[in-house]
């Protein structure tokens, strides 16, 4: 399992996957690869953010935090701390 040492690395989690918090370009489509263990993990799952789901990073707030993303048909805002828990793979725009 992924341990809490993910926090020691800024851009990638332990398995070398890109964190959503490190994604610089937007808007961009992403495929969720994993969610780090955290007390917010359940909450993210309930909002439809879990491995295999595609999400879209739409915007960052003017000071770089929070993030605006879309999941299915809904728009969500989450803080950098939450985006840190989400590992993604960027999808080339078709």
């Amino acid at each position, binding site marked *: 399992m992924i341990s809490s040492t993910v926090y020691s690395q800024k851009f990638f989690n332990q398995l070398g996957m890109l964190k959503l918090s490190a994604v610089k370009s937007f808007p961009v489509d992403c495929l969720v690869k994993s969610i780090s263990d955290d007390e917010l993990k359940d909450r993210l799952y309930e909002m439809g953010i*879990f491995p295999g789901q595609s999400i879209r990073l739409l915007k960052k707030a003017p000071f770089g935090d929070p993030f*605006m993303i879309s999941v299915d048909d809904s728009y969500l805002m989450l803080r950098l701390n939450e985006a840190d828990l989400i590992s993604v793979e960027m999808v080339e725009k078709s």
Partner: protein
Amino acid sequence: MRKIALVGNPNVGKSTLFNKLTGLNQHVGNYPGVTVDKKYGITSINGEKYEIVDLPGVYSINPKSEDERIVYEYLTKKSDIDLVVVIADALNLERNLVLFSQIYDLNLPIMLVVNRIDMKGASKIDPYDLSRLLGGIPVAAINARTGDLKDLKDQIGGFERPDQWQQFYTKTEEDNYEKEIEERFAIVRKLLKFLKKESKEASSITNKLDQILVHRFFGYGIFIGILFLIFQFLYAFANVPMDLIDSFFGVASGFVSDFLPAGPVSALLAEGIIPGIGGVVIFIPQIALLFLFLTILEETGYMTRAVFLMDKLMRPFGLHGKSVVPLMSGVACAIPGIMAARSIDQPKERLITILVTPLMSCSARLPVYILLITLTVPDQQIAGFINLQGLVLLGMYLLGLIAALLFGMLFKFILKTESKSFLIMEMPQYQVPYLKNVLFNVYEKSKAFVWGAGRIIIALSIILWVLGSYGPDSFGNDKSEELISQTALESSFIGIAGQQIEPVIEPLGYDWKIGIALITSFAAREVFVSTMATIYSIDNEEDEASLLQRMNQEVDAYTGEKRYGLATGISLMIFYAFAMQCMSTLAITKRETKTWKWPLIQFGYMTTLAYVSSLIVYQLLA
């Protein structure tokens, strides 16, 4: 009476449906031990009466937050629910049906309502098809705002549980909660595949508006502009009814004291009860207007964009993006501000917002500032064009803001919380506000203030009146009428208390007369001016010029210097800026936090801050 529980995600129009079903026939109560209000109402369906409980909006019934705990416990522990109505948003059916599947698996009598069925981008759902897919449970498709609810009402009225009932998802030994959610999403997705789906392009307007409204420059400009407009309207429109209310209660008092035989009863009515009620009613225009604007911002979906812009800036101060609104309201009046903090989901950030909002300089402090500035700050220009008096006034407002932010920071470190702070918030699509919801919210907030805080305020007004009208001598043999007239203030309990505290307040530069004013100001800060007028025996309270002259002539008995010099003036203004001298605010903090602990802490920290800072300032300046 049959009982219906209304459950759904936040922002799906649950309250709209609840308002539409119950009208004004709704009540607010408490769930035991929590701060969330319990909303319930009565509706009549096909001649039969139903009690509807509007449960808090949740994304799941896995009890993590207070709201989820309430919903979970209500659904699993109450055995007398006749029907659970799950309301889902046609704009986001997938996630909404995941919640539905969780509740369905509790094996309760259940039906599904799909809202916003005719919105652009909504899933085109045939209720009959969906009902069949869900094993025969009733499904109604509605638009809670515009459409009629006859179909929904018929289905509720004729509700029967389907014979067959098959669990959506059965938990196996090795499945954890995450696995369960993934499975539920997969099942719901499979179900939805059978239904025709409209191509979605609804959010284009939302996308376009977001380009401007959360833009790095325009976004903040528009936000500041909106706040500016709200407070302009608040001042412009609230003042007229407030003056009317003020003079109405003034006339009523005068009428009572003129026509009732003079005596304790007449005085209690004219000087205690009627002004007490007046002191509650006078806040209603501000509360109603502020919530009119706030609900419109909330309903349109703009409020979440303001959170998006402000969250990062507010966080170092222990506050939330949504704290901006309560703090700004605090400039008009802390009471609606504290009530507005309810929209903050995070318990800790909400509490900090409630605790620091009264530090913002409210409009009741303005008459005090103006009197003291005119009296003690020289009317001169700095650098040729800046008016010193105006600068000091601006300084008082900034002082309030800085104190609020610094204490927010302090509370952030002191207060402990069970859960860590996070922000995962849905940003609804922009929509036109629904007038009925707006008016309901205004009505509900005003009512909550009158019933929740009004009783405490009236009770305290009467106690203050008794203490200000009677003294130890009142209980002697000659209970003359003079003792209940205002000239007796100095020999009343409050007057004596004011004299008793003189040694304590002397280091701040105050005498016993100011001491009396400090105590009476607890009813409301602006009472300072009228108390001063009473103490200096000015017959006409409105005549500030003569009060100014009297106060200006006042001389310190020992030093022979002017009583109201610059040092005393500044010290007193700082005391009024920081001290918790507003029982209405304490009453509303009690109502919002549901305990006396926080109003007492608020009173303690603010008054200590006031005392210490005034002491330092006076000792430095004198």
